[in-house]
């Protein structure tokens, strides 16, 4: 088990009801953590519509998440 900071934006923030949390998890990768959180909170966006970010940089879903990392899930962007 490790402790990870998870950040939520936009529709994910609304669906989770908070912008950031500390998560204790045994999951290894960003993708596994999203699957775990999505099942728990009923997120509507499938992972293929999202990107992951690790420590404020884009990262592949297969990236290993380590103790103390900041993990974010990026819904489809809509600037402009």
């Amino acid at each position, binding site marked *: 088990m490790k402790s990870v900071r998870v*950040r939520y*934006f*936009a*529709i994910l*923030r*609304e669906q989770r009801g908070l912008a950031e949390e500390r998560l204790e998890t045994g999951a290894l990768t960003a993708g596994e953590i999203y699957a775990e959180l999505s099942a728990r909170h009923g997120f*509507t*966006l*499938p992972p293929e*519509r999202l990107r992951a*970010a690790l420590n*404020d*940089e*884009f990262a592949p879903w297969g990236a290993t998440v380590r103790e103390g990392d900041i993990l*974010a899930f*990026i*819904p*489809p*962007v*809509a*600037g*402009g």
Partner: protein
Amino acid sequence: MFRLSAEPIDPGALARSLSDPRAGACATFEGWVRSRNDGRPVRSLEYEAYLPLAEKEGARILAEAAARFPLLRAACVHRTGALALGELAVWVGVTAEHRGAAFDACRYIIDEAKARVPIWKREHYADGTAGWINAAPAAGGPPPPP
């Protein structure tokens, strides 16, 4: 220079910041909050951003534009927070010796910024509902420009 701004954007000051004695052309793009989107009357909107990553990705886009096009200076500023109808949501400006590079780089920057920078838009509609743009579970149809 890419930045996010919680305060209203001043296009005149930004355009002046791009001046260069060699510049013969300045192309700008302004994105304004419009009164309808996809046929629905809009009352206001808000932008949320993932600050450090948005600024990194925006800076990368400006660097790419400078590598691809013979430009002199380029800047992009995007608003965050609550915006009223008609307000300036995003400003892009590029100076170059010649107009072709200024136009092409300006368009590259806004196209890439809209596609890649982690900023999200929530529209408030006249009927009291609100929604995040592009947040449907399935990517339905082509994404609406701009």
